[in-house]
């Protein structure tokens, strides 16, 4: 039914996944001592930056971003500023949630914040791209009948996958295996990343297989 959209979605996701791959491989080529565990914060920031840049570009090019009512420069600028503000607030929100979940408050503050930035760029940024800076719409999307387009369904799936991945990533931390990936926040960021990539694959596939059942209310 939505073959065109599904194809667009699959290629978008392929581009985003490729950017994640490049953001992991390129620094390793350029920098001699780079590794995902060793220079974990660097990896987080490079992946976040890549995902941010690529998602914004792709969604802008595709025109998924909700149409603006006014076309004045001032309105667009305020929207941009609000988006940035939301991005930052979302980082703080994730940081708070992580601390409440049991992350050390002071000791690993920078690591926790980096994880929050990663999660924000994997989840909130997508919301910003698809729905614009509109919290009401975000809350609406995450309900059973809230999705109004294929992209909304896709957003639901990827965000849920990312968060569940990061949540599952916390599980190996208490184990006494003494592996480098058990160090905070490596397992959580890896879990989130794997969840995100899974979501990227799963969303088009799921939508493809359920395209007969999917119905959306017109906006």
């Amino acid at each position, binding site marked *: 039914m939505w073959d065109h959209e599904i194809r667009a979605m699959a290629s978008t996701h392929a581009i985003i996944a490729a950017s994640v791959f490049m953001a992991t491989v390129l620094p390793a080529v350029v920098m001699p001592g780079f590794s995902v565990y060793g220079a974990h914060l660097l990896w987080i920031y490079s992946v976040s930056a890549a995902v941010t840049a690529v998602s914004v570009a792709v969604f802008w090019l595709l025109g998924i971003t909700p149409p603006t009512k006014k076309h004045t420069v001032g309105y667009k600028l305020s929207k941009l500023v609000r988006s940035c503000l939301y991005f930052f607030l979302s980082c703080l929100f994730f940081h708070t949630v992580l601390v409440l979940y049991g992350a050390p408050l002071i000791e690993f503050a920078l690591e926790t914040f980096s994880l929050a930035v990663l999660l924000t760029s994997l989840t909130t940024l997508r919301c910003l791209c698809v729905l614009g800076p509109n919290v009401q719409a975000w809350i609406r999307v995450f309900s*059973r009948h809230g999705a109004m387009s294929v992209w909304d369904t896709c957003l639901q799936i990827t965000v849920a996958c990312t968060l569940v991945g990061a949540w599952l990533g916390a599980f190996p931390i208490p184990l006494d295996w003494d592996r480098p990936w058990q160090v905070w926040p490596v397992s959580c960021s890896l879990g989130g990343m794997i969840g995100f990539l899974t979501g990227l694959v799963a969303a088009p596939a799921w939508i493809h297989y359920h395209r007969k059942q999917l119905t959306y209310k017109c906006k």
Partner: protein
Amino acid sequence: MVSRRKPSSVNFRRVHCTLEFLAVTSYLISLYRSPNEEDENPTATRMKRLPVLPLLLWVCAVYSVGIYLFVGGFLLVRLEVNRTSTCRDVLQPGEEPGDFCGVQPRFRRAVLLIIDALKIDFARFDPNNTEPRPYENKLPVLEETASTRPSHGRLYPFRADPPTTTMQRIKGFTTGSLPTFVDVGNNFASSAILEDNLIHQFGQEGKRVVFMGDDTWESLFPKKFYRSLPFPSFNVKDLHTVDNGILQHLYTTMVGDDWDVLVAHFLGVDHCGHRFGPDHPAMADKLTQMDGVIRSVIDRLQNDTLLVVMGDHGMTDTGDHGGESQKETDAAIFLYSPSPLFPGPPSQREPDVVPQTDLVPTLALLLGVPIPYSSVGQVLLPLFPPHGQKEGAVGGLSQLEALWINAKQVNRFLETYSGMAKDIPPENLSQLKNEFAHLSSEYLSSIREGRPPSPELASLLQAYLTSVRDTCRATWARFNPLKMAGGLAILALACLVCFILSELSSVLIMESGPGLKVPVAAALTGGTCVAACQLLTQGYIELAWCVAAAALSSELLFLRRAHQFRTSVVAKNGTKAPKSASWLTPSRLLTPPLLVLLLRCASLLSDSYVIAEGRVVTFLVFSLGLYIPFHLNWDGLLLPPSHDPLKPAGLLPSPVLSPSTVRKESSTLLTCVGFLVGSLYLSLNFHGCREEQGSCQPSPFLAPLSRMQNSQLKNLHYILSVFSLGLWTYLLRRCLRHYGNLNSSGGTVFTARFILPLLSVCLGLHWAVSATPEDSFRNLGQLISLAQLALPRAAFCLLGLGLFLIWLDPLTVFVKTRASALARGSSLPPPRYRASTGISPQAELHHLIPQLYQRMRRSLDDGELSGGGEVDSRPAVEAYGLGTVYSAPLLLFCGLLGLGLLLLHPEGMALSFLLLLLEMGAVLYIHASSTTLSCLNGTYPGGFYVPWTPVVLWSLAATQFFHATGHLPTFPSIQWGAAFVGFPDGHTGTVLPASLVTLNTFASHILFAVGCPLLLFWPLVCEVRGSKGGRACGEEGEDAVMEMRLRENPQQFSSALLQLSTRYLFILGAQVFASVCAAAILRRHLMVWKVFAPKLMFEASGFLVSSVFLLIGVTLVLRVDVAVGRWFKRLIPDASR
């Protein structure tokens, strides 16, 4: 709504209440309707209420049987060999049966100074340490003597076997055997040692043993001492009584000549560790005192006397012991004699560590008594001269001779033991036997031929002794797999039964499904059958198997009947078949709350997760708490449905709740989630530390105030604790008052009004008194010690009185008969007349306002109800607080119990208890709000059923606060101090201290289990908020009737109660089952005795305590129900007059 703005009409009789503006809810009960109801289903009320309690009892009993059976098979048992060694035993080399004891021993006398908890770190002396901690460098005498006179005295680390509790250690170093896990529980009721032991051997040889110190010895060796001076050991706070008592008699005894072996057991160091921890000036004082004692004893020693200074175990950094960390096991041993004791200089062959069992054969051979029969220790070789140079010590044995005697004794024990019990693996046994045969032939031949035995023989003998000890240590971890499997099966089936009961509860109660009679009958037959079989085949009855058979048969029969019943129900109403047939499908089982429960159970199978259990549970509770709003939002219930103008208006059913109500409910929900999250996060600050958690710092709130040295910090902690205590009391009263439960004059209200505040005042005073340093107010010392005794006891009495009053008169309903008011209202005398009777104007005002108000309302009522005049003539009753008639006593019960349990905790835990109350409230309100919001969905199942999510939250919160009140599932972390609250001088019996410690340990389990039925009531309690905007759950009813709904639907009430309790029991039981599985699967795991077995014990006892208190809670609810029934009965004839 009238009910919300007439505080004065309620409280005019109680002036002090009227001043505070209360939000009181009242109910108008038209008495013409009530009797009808009563007539309709009084039998139903009685009959359907009955099966709840027996069913729960049966389930609990089945669980307990499963636990009992498994624990019986899992916990280790070692057979005691009741034989004793004698002098005539052929132990000497050579064929002729010489009298072993006739030979003159090396030492005639010995002094054993046992300094309880003398850790090796305390005994070492480091001259380079310029800034020693309070416990360092305080015993210079040991190191001084050892370095200046190395052939006279030496210091070794002395490694105890776990469990490192004093009684087990005394048993260990007198019998030379290895302790088993079961012994841990006997620490409070130490009974006499029946195995052969050193003290017995000394007695046999006519040596006069004089004992002084810890009275545990007296109970272990009754009537074995020549002279005995025991001093009470139980009071951990008392640092000096035992030690001073010993010192009074020690020197005089030593100078005298009426003793051969002198045992002095000092307790001061251990008690100091328990009370203050090792890092405290008091420890320095105590160790310095011990230094002086050792010096004076050394000065008084004679040449034929051996001195042994030893610790029985070590201590952790917090001063506790009982586990098997190196800090706890490594004590010190110092051996000294004025005559040369060690034949050679310290050499390479010095042992690094002396195992505690080795003391027994060494002492026995040095003093010339036979080695106790069941000792598995080996002699300490440096004390014996090498073969061929016996001239150093008179009459002593050479190394090889000593080893030979020792090996022969151990071999004899092994043979006896393997003849009695079959638990040592045969291949190990035959290997050991061969080894011994080989060694003995070699040794005997060399003796016979008169040639010096080969130098390897000594080390071979040593290796043999070591391997025997290791084999014993390994095999006394012996399990009974059959019992374990039986226990597992019973527990698994019990979980299944619980789940099915919870799913079937409605049908079960409504249509009187599979009852209890048949399972109970099956249980009886099964049990008696097995008993008869056992009698016939074995000649005796093993109780465990009979109970197991009973439990298993009743379970199986219940399951079968449930299955039959279900199919019959399905057959009866075919349309409902798919719905009722689907309870056990994966989609139904894999809901997030059950998934969280599954994760929790899975976490019990890994030692890392058990070690980090506190954080793991907090994580899971947090996740589940966050899941609730997300799930509601997913169902589109969190936000009021947006009114789209494009949408066809008639397509959707009109919303049941108005948008403003939805918004209000969601904001309440989110606030409560915030509270939940906040209290979860704060509760992490109250955790204790396991020894496995290396870099962990225990919470500063865990230390009692009396341990704190900084007085400012102490005051701050005290103020915080008192503040949270006050807030606890205030919140409880506030809640009761809010729902109008403080107006009547019954027992419960009396408790809430007076006993609750009095109890908290008692608590605050008690903390103040116990926090004062002992020597700060010298002239008030008497008063302080009296207060320390009286205040907690008064609190216990108040608590008992309060709980009793709640039980006796649980109703909190204030009744005002409207009929009489109306009757008087019509013939109301003019105000002037009333004033003239001498009532003060104020009182008159208080009378007048309600009367005026009554009139106003009467006219309002006339307007509201269509048949105005007719209704008005009816007698009616206003009952205040009827809406919370069930929950109010339960809440108060919980609150009182919480204060009582807080009394048993360190003062700082008041904050944690406050968090517990807040979290309870948060969960209750979250549950209430989400229920109200779910009504919108239309999927509300009807009835009062509590979904899984809040129940799982509730039970996980119990575990979470187990950790957040400073408890850990390890034996050293048990807060023994609780046994001394109100009994600073110790106890005579063991029941009282044991129950106090149990109450302390499982405080959070108790509170959450008692409060469990609140989950059923709270959505009804909160319903009144929804009543403004419209009916809460769409049921027809013109008034907010809150918990009276339960009264109107007794069947649904009892089925919901049954469902809630079985769900709670299922969750607890699943956790027990998981830890039982962990213990069974990982029984050969490295961590089994350190992590899994203690966890199992704690989980199982937590389950038992929880189930008992859950039953108490449910019984209280049923009691209230009975009282409400009586109250209605009494009301009807009253009103109809």
